[in-house]
C-alpha cells in the first residue's frame, strides 16, 4: 500500500502539470465567473484546440485519431491535473466523452475522418439526444419516430434534458423505428446535424436559475440513411455502448457547492450571539459526518483507480459516489443555512462568490440528486448490477410498444 506514482507516471504528471501551468498564464482563470457563456466558450475552444494538438483531448486514442496513444492511468493523471485549474472545458465533456467514442466505433472511415478531430479540438460540439418527456429513467420508453423514406429517414418528436444542445453542432440520437415489437427491439440510432431544417432547440431554465439542459423538437427532419449508426432496430445495443462510456461518474461526484474547507472558514466567523459557529458541538458533529462521507468517496475512488491501474475497468459501483455526495451536498448546504438562522436564506451580496455559495449549492443539490439518475435509480443499479439482486418486475418486456402506451 503506497501512494507513489510509478516513475513513468510521475514523469508524465510533471510534463502535464508544467504544460497546464504554462497555458494558465494565458488566461485570467479567477475572473471566468463574470464572463458570459459565449465568452467562456470562445476561451474554451481556444484552449481545447491546444490541448488536442498535444493529444491530451483523448489520451488513450492513437495519434492518427487525435489522441496520444497513452494508458488509462495517463488519462486519469491528465484529468486530475487539469481539474486543479479552472479551464472552461465543461462544454466539451459530454461531446468528447460519449457521442464521439460512439462515432469512432460505429461510423464509417470517412465519417470518422470528417468528424472526430474537429470535435476533439472543440471546433464542433456534439450532444446526446436520449431522454424524452415520457422517457426519463426508462430510456426504453422513447417515442421519437424515425420513418424510412427511400434513402432517407424522417424524424418527428421531442427530446429533453439534452445537455448543451443550444451550443452543439451535431447530436447522436436514439429513435423509435418499429412500435410493433417489444420496446427494446424497435429502436434505431443515428447522428444528426442540428442545422437540419425542422429542428428547434429550447434551453430549459432550471429551478436554480440557469442551466445547460435543452428541449429539442423534431418536425419532419430528413436525414440520410448513411447517418445511421448500427443496424436498423439495433439502436438499443448502440445506446448501451454509449452509456458504457460513462466511466468514473465519481470524478464529477462533487458537483458544485461549497467545499468543507470553505464551510469551516465560513463557520469561523462570529455569529449574532457573539460566538464562532465552530464552537457549537452540534455543528462540529455534523462537520465530522460530512468529512467522513467525502473522505470515504475519495478513498473509494482511490481504490477504483488501483483497480484501473491493474487493468480492471470500474463498473456500476461508481454509482454509489453520486448517491452519497448528492445527498451530502444537500444536507450540508441546508445545515449551513440553518446555522445562520434567519440570515441563512439571504444570498451574499457579492455575485462572484455566488457560484461556491452553500445557498446556491442547496438549490442545485435538489437537481443534482436527479440528473444522471435519481437516488432510486442508483440504488437499483447497485442492487442489481453490483449485488446481483433480481431486477424489478417488468410488465413491458414482451409486449409491443404500441400496446404499452
Amino acid at each position, binding site marked *: 500500500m503506497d501512494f507513489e506514482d510509478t516513475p513513468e507516471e510521475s514523469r508524465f504528471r510533471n510534463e502535464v502539470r508544467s504544460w497546464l501551468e504554462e497555458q494558465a498564464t494565458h488566461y485570467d482563470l479567477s475572473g471566468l465567473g463574470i464572463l458570459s457563456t459565449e465568452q467562456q466558450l470562445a476561451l474554451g475552444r481556444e484552449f481545447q484546440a491546444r490541448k488536442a494538438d498535444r493529444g491530451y483531448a483523448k489520451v488513450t486514442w492513437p495519434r492518427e485519431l487525435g489522441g496520444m496513444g497513452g494508458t488509462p492511468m495517463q488519462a486519469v493523471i491528465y484529468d486530475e491535473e487539469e481539474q486543479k485549474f479552472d479551464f472552461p472545458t465543461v462544454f466539451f465533456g459530454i461531446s468528447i466523452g460519449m457521442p464521439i467514442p460512439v462515432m469512432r466505433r460505429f461510423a464509417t472511415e470517412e465519417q470518422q475522418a470528417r468528424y472526430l478531430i474537429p470535435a476533439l479540438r472543440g471546433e464542433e460540439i456534439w450532444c446526446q439526444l436520449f*431522454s424524452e418527456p*415520457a*422517457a*426519463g*429513467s*426508462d430510456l*426504453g*420508453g422513447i417515442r421519437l419516430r424515425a420513418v424510412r423514406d427511400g434513402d432517407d429517414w424522417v424524424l418527428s418528436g421531442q427530446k*429533453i*434534458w439534452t445537455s448543451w444542445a443550444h451550443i452543439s453542432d451535431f447530436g447522436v440520437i436514439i429513435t423509435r423505428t418499429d412500435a410493433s415489437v417489444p*420496446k427494446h427491439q424497435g429502436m434505431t440510432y443515428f447522428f444528426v446535424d442540428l442545422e437540419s431544417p425542422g429542428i428547434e432547440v429550447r434551453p*430549459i*431554465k*432550471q*429551478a*436554480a436559475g440557469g442551466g445547460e439542459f435543452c428541449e429539442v423538437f423534431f418536425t419532419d427532419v430528413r436525414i440520410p440513411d448513411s447517418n445511421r449508426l448500427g443496424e436498423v432496430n439495433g439502436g438499443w445495443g448502440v445506446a448501451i455502448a454509449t452509456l458504457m462510456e460513462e466511466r468514473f461518474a465519481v470524478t464529477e461526484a462533487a458537483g458544485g457547492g461549497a467545499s468543507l474547507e470553505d464551510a469551516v472558514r465560513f463557520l469561523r*466567523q462570529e*455569529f*449574532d*450571539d*457573539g*460566538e464562532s*459557529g465552530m464552537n*457549537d458541538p*452540534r455543528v462540529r458533529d455534523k462537520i465530522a459526518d460530512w468529512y467522513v462521507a467525502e473522505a470515504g468517496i475519495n478513498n473509494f475512488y482511490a481504490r477504483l483507480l488501483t483497480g484501473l491501474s491493474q487493468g480492471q475497468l470500474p463498473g456500476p459501483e461508481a454509482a454509489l459516489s453520486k448517491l452519497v455526495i448528492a445527498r451530502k451536498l*444537500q444536507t450540508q448546504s*441546508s445545515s449551513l*443555512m*440553518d*446555522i*445562520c*438562522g*434567519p*440570515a*441563512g*436564506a*439571504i*444570498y451574499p*451580496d457579492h455575485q462572484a462568490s455566488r457560484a461556491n455559495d452553500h*445557498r446556491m449549492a*442547496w*438549490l442545485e443539490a*435538489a*437537481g443534482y*440528486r*436527479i*440528473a444522471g439518475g*435519481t*437516488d*432510486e435509480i442508483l*440504488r*437499483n443499479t447497485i442492487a442489481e448490477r453490483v449485488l446481483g439482486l433480481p431486477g*424489478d418486475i*417488468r*410488465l*413491458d418486456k414482451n*409486449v409491443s410498444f404500441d400496446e*404499452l*402506451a
Partner: protein
Amino acid sequence: MLLMLGISYPGGTTDVNFDFSDEQRALQNEVKRFLSRRCDLSVARRVLDDESLGHDESVWREMLELGWAGIAIPEHFGGVGLGYLELCVMAQEMGRSLAPVPFSSTIYLFSEAIRRVGDPEVLEAILPQVAAGQLIGTLAYAEGLGFPRSDHISVRYRDGRLSGEKWPVLDSNIASKAVVLASDDDGRPCLCLVDLEQPSVQRRVLESIDPTRDQGVLTFNATEARCLGEPGDSSWSVFQSVLDAAAVLLAFEQVGGAEACLESAIAFASERKAFGRTVASFQAIKHKLADIYVGNQLALSNAYYGAWALDSGSDELPLAASAARVSATHAYEFAATESVQVHGGMGFTWEADCHLFLRRSRSLALLIGDLGMWKGRVTTEFERKVA
C-alpha cells in the same frame, strides 16, 4: 401502553374534541375557495419572476377587504373578534397556496407583538389600523448571522430614538410600521414601535432563496421610536412569547405547504409511467410518499396541540409551540425535497412548481429561528417538567 410523555392532557388523553369546530372548518373552506380562485400558484410565480415585486398587491387588497387582517382582533378594536384557532386554519391554507402577501409579518409577528405588550394606548392606536387593513407591520429582531442573545443586541434605543441595523426583516420594504428588538443604555433588551416612513429609516431589499416573500435590511439613524413596556427580562419574555405564537401559526403554514407537496407528488407519480408501470407502483416511491405522509401527520398533530395551547393560554405554550415548530419544519423540508425527487427531471425545471415549495420550505424554516434554536427550546422546556 400509551405514551404520556411530556404531554399530560387535562382529563386524560380522551379529549373528545381535539379538532377544529364546524364553524372553523367552514371558515377554512371559505379561505381555501378564495385562494384557489384568486391566488393559485401562478400568483406566487409572478412575484418570483418579477424581481421588482415582493408581494401581490391586488390579492392582499382583496384579503383586507374580506377583513382577514382583523379576524383575531377584538370587535371593540374593529376586528372580527375570532381567535387563534381561526388564524390556524387560515394559515394552513396560506401555506398551501404559497400566498405572497404580508399576512404573517403583519398578523403573526407585528400585531401579535403589539397585543402581547398590551399597552392600552398602543393597542388603541394600532389594532384598529391593522383590523381596517390600513397598515402592513413587521417584527425586526435579527442582526445578521445567527440568533440574537438578550445580552447581545447591537441596535440601541436612547431617549426615544433608535440607531443601528436590523436584517433580515420580513416585508421590510412594504411595512409602514415595525416592532424592533433593541437594547437600552444599560444593555437591557426592549421592544420599540417605529414608524418606518420616517426619512431617517433606510431600507434595502436583500436577495433571498424565496423571493416570493421579500426580506431586507432596516437601518435606523436616530429614528424616533416608542419603547413598549419596561426594558429588561419582561420585554425579552414578551419577545419569546411572540415567537411562540408565530411558531404555532407558521407551523400550520408549513403543514399546509407540506400537504400540497404530498398531493402533487402523488398526482404526478400516479400519472407518470416508467418501465411500463406508473411511477407510483414502485415500492421505493410508495414508501417515500408514505414517509412524507407520516411526517406530515406528526407535524399536523403537534400543530394541533400548539393551537390548543395558544388558544387556551396554557402555560404549555412554550413546549407545545417549540415541538410544533420543529415537527413542521422537518415535515415541510422533507416533503418539499422528496417531492422534487418524485417528480424527477421535471421537478427541477423552472416551470414546475416544486421549487416554489422548496424555496418556501427553507425560508419558513429560518424565518423565526432555525431548528437548532427551537430544538434547544424543546429540551429546556421539557426538562423543566421532569422531576
